[in-house]
């Protein structure tokens, strides 16, 4: 173990933890100005390569490596860009593989182990960066490019992402497995690294990338549709502002009416209640029971103005009533005179009276009952009829027979 390297690494990490607030501030805001930090701390951070100053007299920014570390560990995808330079990474891997094989060939095992470790580092870094790339694209797709608000910006971001996917796919094509497998030869460790590990990551990434591409295209379609709809609305407002008298032609006058405007009028109305349906009786009763108040729409009664009433008209009405009573009286007299029993309807027919038969019967019964008990004793009255077939307790009178006792 290299003691010096270990010591300075520990020192760096300690410095990072000691000045974590400054670093996080620089990470979130993008830069820190010299006035915010004490010169001593600033010096230390500059020396350790945590901060740097891109321009003279400018603010201090975080070094890319520190930023990458934070982004990777915090899974912060806000402005993360991964630049995968596949060609140079592959070249480095191939070179290291050759170093390793040469060292093995000459039996320098300690050295070969070092090369193998480096090689592992490179291969895993490459696979990690590929996986990160896909993850980043997915997270952008999943929040639908939520970090930009306008649809136009989303469309631009989408196009950028698509070009990145194409780039990555092109770069992945640079991995030639036949070359790598030849290079690895029959060395087990090399084969595992160059063929197995890379191939696994290769298949996973290409599969995911094609999914990403499909999603991106779908999203682009949706964004374009949004933009089209918004433009349609805005265009309509603009047009009708510029041409206030604009009215679309009446397309329903065309010989061929577009399907869009062929919309039939509503046909069904609510069905009415059938009170004779015995099956629904329970429900209907329940409904009626729920009615709290009965609001009959009373027609506003018009109070007619006071006017003089002619007595003659009233007298005429009275006459009408008294004719019926007189006829009943005559009927009673006829019974007394003749001493025969005759039914009210028979008398009605015989005398060819023009009263309604029902009214006649009522009047006869009423006439009998209006007599004194003493006079009632002379007459015998009997109703012929039958009990009501449905409603018990009611008696239907068909005729009345009247006679002397």
């Amino acid at each position, binding site marked *: 173990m290299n003691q010096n390297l270990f010591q300075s690494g520990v020192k760096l990490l300690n410095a990072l933890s000691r000045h974590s607030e400054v670093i996080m501030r620089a990470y979130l805001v993008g830069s820190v100005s010299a006035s915010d930090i004490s010169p001593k701390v600033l010096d230390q951070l500059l020396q350790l390569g945590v901060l740097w100053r891109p321009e003279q007299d400018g603010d201090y920014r975080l070094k890319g490596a520190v930023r990458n570390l934070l982004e990777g560990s915090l899974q912060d995808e806000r402005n993360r860009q991964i630049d995968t330079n596949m060609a140079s990474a592959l070249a480095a891997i191939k070179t290291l593989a050759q170093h390793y094989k040469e060292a093995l060939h000459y039996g320098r095992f300690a050295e070969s182990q070092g090369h193998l470790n480096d090689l592992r580092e490179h291969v895993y870094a490459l696979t990690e960066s590929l996986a990160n790339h896909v993850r980043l694209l997915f997270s952008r797709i999943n929040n639908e490019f939520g970090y930009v608000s306008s649809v136009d910006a989303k469309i631009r971001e989408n196009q950028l992402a698509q070009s990145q996917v194409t780039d990555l796919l092109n770069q992945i094509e640079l991995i030639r497995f036949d070359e790598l497998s030849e290079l690895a030869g029959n060395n087990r460790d090399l084969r595992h690294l160059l063929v197995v590990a890379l191939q696994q990551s290769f298949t996973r990434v290409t599969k995911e990338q094609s999914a990403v591409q499909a999603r991106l295209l779908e999203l682009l379609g949706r964004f374009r549709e949004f933009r089209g709809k918004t*433009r349609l609305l805005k265009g309509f407002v603009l*047009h009708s502002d510029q041409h206030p008298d604009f009215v679309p032609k009446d397309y329903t006058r065309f010989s061929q009416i577009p399907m869009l405007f062929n919309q039939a009028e509503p046909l069904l109305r609510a069905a009415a209640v059938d009170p004779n349906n015995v099956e629904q009786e329970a429900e209907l009763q329940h409904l009626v029971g729920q009615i709290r108040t009965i609001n009959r729409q009373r027609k506003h009664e018009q109070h007619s103005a006071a006017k003089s009433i002619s007595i003659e008209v009233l007298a005429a009405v009275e006459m009408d009533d008294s004719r019926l009573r007189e006829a009943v009286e005559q009927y009673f007299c006829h019974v007394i005179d003749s001493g025969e029993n005759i039914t009210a309807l028979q008398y009605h027919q015989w005398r060819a009276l023009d009263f309604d038969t029902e009214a006649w019967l009522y009047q006869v019964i009423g006439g009998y009952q209006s007599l004194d008990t003493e006079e009632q004793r002379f007459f015998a009255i009997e109703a012929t009829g039958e009990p009501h077939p449905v409603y018990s307790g009611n008696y239907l009178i068909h005729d009345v027979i009247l006679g002397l006792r």
Partner: protein
Amino acid sequence: MMNQQGRVLTQLLQGQFICQISDEEAWRYLKNSANRDALEPHLNLLNRTLTSTADGDVFFVGYTALGEDERKILGQQFQEVSSSLRPLVDWLLLVQQAQGSDVPVTMGTPIRLTELQTIIEDTPAFAEQLEKISRYRLFGSTSTQVDGQIKQVFKRLTDLGYLLKPNPEKQIFIATGKIDYLYEVLRFIDETESLSLAEQAQMASEQGSLL
């Protein structure tokens, strides 16, 4: 009990628009072509036929044969549609702008009334716009307060079938397929009258960005 076919037929004959939002079950039923074919003879009997918007996501009923009477009814309907275009378009733009997401209101877009109201109350330009919209005859509000205006507008839109209030206790509305129908009407007018509305809007926004 009525079966699904009867239920869908009833809704269609009542003049309803059926989309995934307004009635998902009926919509799924209509998405199946065998079901549509089974429904068609019933409708044809009444001189009606099943119609859908271009993307086939909103169903409604139209006439099979067009006589004088039918034309008269369609003419009236068209007058109503074309006179309500501007109020509806203004409202759609207001909601889109107030929500700040630059995404147009389409079928399935949820609108939270209280949130929208807060934004409109805090932004005088939006409040002015709402005032103008609520005065259209389509909405017919006479209120001077944002609260009354926005409630009246949303109530009318719900009555007209453009919005749906899934939970009566919550002030959350969902746009139905009738909104998509509206876009299609606009697109149709745009194409038939060669207005090139989208190009006009694009040009205006480009000129706006130059100024």
